[in-house]
């Protein structure tokens, strides 16, 4: 009996270790699976190169090894899911493995600073949203220059923040808020201090909604304060507002988007109210380190465009609730420059001290 128990115990330990190893390899699943497919991919690439060598001469030999996409947020978040929705079709088109790596921390600034100093060869790309990147640089003094990053390709957009009020609030429009703020001191909740929500609060302030912005740790905490009627209004991401709106806890009265949103078509934009600069669109796209050769970027953006036409891409996008907004490098750069300028203009308004 004692023998038996001893053997069983050893089996338990071995099993535990086995699970642990499985768990670890699971965690690096992307790397592992792509390593195996790397060799396949390479041999395939080699054979196809030999076959169509002449045809492909004009686009150069890029890419000839795996491409790493560094996501500036944790696995499972919206930025991460956006990146992962394109990797599969992309690796088929480029014929090399595409690996996603999450480098989170300091609101994304760790990843941004890391890729900013990376070799500009196109094999390491950054996946980070704007305007977050611009806010991270300008307000939180990130160690990189947003304007020097090479825009590669943008996948998703058409989303922004929304202005929400408690269900039983007397306010129906942004104008109501402006009017109310003249006679009483309004309080607003949002997530964080150097965030899209804080930018939204600054926009409202600019329009004449005088209020005290109270930062919370996350979107859902901030929405809870609105739902409980502890603040007069809140600025929240569309995703955070979605289910409380459906539950009838909060109402959406406006949006910081440039155009009306598909999900809340009745919410007026600030731009409609005559403030052309007071709008931003959250764009989920890819960036390359400064100085990446133009032909490499072209190869990448063309391949991504092709990948975005793949049905599996749209499926993944739909599942995560993204809206496609395809921008090629030139258009993407324009959007970036415009957003950067807006945020630079409001630099002093973010509270950092």
């Amino acid at each position, binding site marked *: 009996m004692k023998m038996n*128990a*001893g053997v*069983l*115990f050893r089996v*338990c330990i071995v*099993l*535990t270790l086995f*699970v*642990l190893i499985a*768990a*670890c390899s*699971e*965690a690096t*699943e992307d790397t592992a699976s792509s390593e195996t497919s790397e060799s396949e991919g390479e041999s395939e690439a080699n054979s196809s190169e030999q076959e169509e060598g002449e045809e492909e001469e004009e686009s150069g030999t890029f890419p000839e090894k795996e491409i790493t996409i560094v996501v500036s947020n*944790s*696995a*499972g978040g919206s930025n991460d899911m956006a990146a992962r929705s394109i990797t599969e079709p992309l690796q088929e088109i480029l014929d090399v493995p595409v690996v996603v790596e*999450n*480098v*989170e*921390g*300091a*609101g994304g*600034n*760790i990843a941004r*600073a890391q890729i900013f100093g990376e070799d500009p060869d196109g094999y390491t790309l950054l996946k980070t949203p704007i305007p977050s990147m611009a806010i991270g640089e300008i*307000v*939180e003094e990130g*160690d990189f220059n947003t304007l020097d990053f090479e825009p590669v390709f943008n996948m998703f957009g058409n989303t922004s923040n929304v202005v929400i009020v408690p269900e039983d609030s007397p306010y129906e429009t942004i104008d109501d808020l402006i009017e109310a703020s003249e006679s009483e*001191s309004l*309080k607003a909740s949002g997530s*964080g*201090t*150097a965030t899209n929500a804080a930018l939204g609060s600054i926009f409202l302030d600019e329009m004449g909604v005088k209020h*005290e912005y*109270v*930062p*919370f*740790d996350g979107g*859902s*905490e901030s*929405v*809870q*304060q609105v*739902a*409980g009627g*502890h*603040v007069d209004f809140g600025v929240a991401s569309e995703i955070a507002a*979605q*289910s*409380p709106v*459906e*539950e009838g*806890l909060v109402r959406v009265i406006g949006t910081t988007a440039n155009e009306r949103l598909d999900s809340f078509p009745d919410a007026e934009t600030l731009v409609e109210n005559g403030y052309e600069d007071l709008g931003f669109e959250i764009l989920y796209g890819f960036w390359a380190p400064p100085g990446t050769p133009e032909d490499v970027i072209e190869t990448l953006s063309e391949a991504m465009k092709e990948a975005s036409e793949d049905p599996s891409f749209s499926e993944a996008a739909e*599942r*995560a609730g993204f809206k496609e907004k395809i921008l090629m490098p030139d258009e993407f750069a324009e959007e970036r420059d415009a957003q950067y300028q807006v945020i630079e203009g409001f630099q002093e308004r*973010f*509270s*950092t*001290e």
Partner: protein
Amino acid sequence: MWLEAFSMFLSIEYILIVIGGTLLGITLGSLPGLGPAFTLALFLPMTFGMDPPSALVFLGVLYSSSVFGGCITAILINAPGTPGSVATTFDGYPLAQQGKGGLALGAAATASLVGGIFGFIALATISPLIASIALKFNPATYFMLALFGLSMVAFAAHGNTLKGLMLAGFGLLISFIGRDPVSGGLRFTFDNIYLEDGISFVPSAIGLFALSQAFVLIGQGGTISKIGGSIGKVSEGVIATFKRPINLTRSSITGVVLGAIPGVGISIANFVAYMFEQRSSKKPKSYGKGNVGGVVAPESANNATTVSELIPAITLGLPGGATSAIFLAAITLHGLEPGASFFSSSSSVSYIVFVGMLLAQFAFFIVALIGMKHFVRVTSMPNELLGAGVITLALVGAYAYNYKVTDMLIAIAFGVLGYILVKYKYPLAPLILGLVLGSMVESNYRRALLMSDGSYGIFFTPIPLTILIVTILILASPMIIGFIKKLFNKSDGGLTNTHSK
């Protein structure tokens, strides 16, 4: 609907999912640093290919069993796998040292089962009510709750009040590292970008509990169990637990209530339940030395918390902690809509998920009954070997938390600190309480004042004031009870005196 959901689990597929998920969950949950949030995040992408009911049952089972797994290392090697098991070490580890590890684990499994069932009943019956109460909480309320949590230092200090206060203060200090949560400015970061997010709880707890304990074990030599070979009977633990119905009920309800408050939950519920248990006991001195009641209380509370944490997540879409946030994401990804209508919707999937979670409670209970006596043999393993194993797992856990080497360094630093503190007989739990509750105390205090235009009146509105009064009463109750007893004794004594005369 419930019946239909139960009948689903007669199929072999679901039974296998429940058993497999339980084994995985217990194993991963028991490893210091991995814990429930990590386990769920790890397996979430794997479930994309599964059909929604099986995927969610699998994740639900993982969720419940990994929280339970946290108690195994807490009891056997004094290294809690999850923050919810810190109070379990107070009596669980002394029991293991006395060669009664099996008894302690049996009690923990039974208590977890009962706590889980309580949580489940709350979720199925009164969740809309609980959710509407959670909405009433403003920053002033959260501040008072955090203060209440900090008052637990008095119990976590095990009589070393001065040392406990010092360490709680040190924990608070560490919690201030990083970005100021309200103004956004940097504090104590020394221009190091990795410190901007502050010192994370997970790697520091791994260092403080697991690593330091490994150092202690290696230094001690010998085995954990002072009585070689003896482990105590698992079944005795089960019986001992059911002999404490009041403790079970009280602790489970404590867990349900605290779990339902978004953001408070699991890290303080186990302390509060432990405190209630010790307070109401006739022999308070026996706690901390290996009283089974001290295992039953925190374990039933933390499992009740796990389930009730899902109440605000599911009915309001407001998750209370990292683990329930991931579970909420899983629910949405698999096409279910969180919200008050979660249970009234025509889809039976929501019922299946929760029946799966309920069955998971029984599954880990059975697994515990069968498997624990083998797990317990860890306590008769040479400490040098065990210590080496714990160090490896702890460092892997610290790294796996965020895939950052910095976190391993933090774990090592806290491991050394923990070792020194243990050597000089400082209690470690107050440090963790300070670290966990520091930012909650500070940020909510400042938010409350922002919302009240600087008026302290916001702290004296009914809900915060009630919590404050309860905190003071609990802290002062030994004095009050002592005073009343004295009065009685005096009159008693007076009476006997006259009689004797």
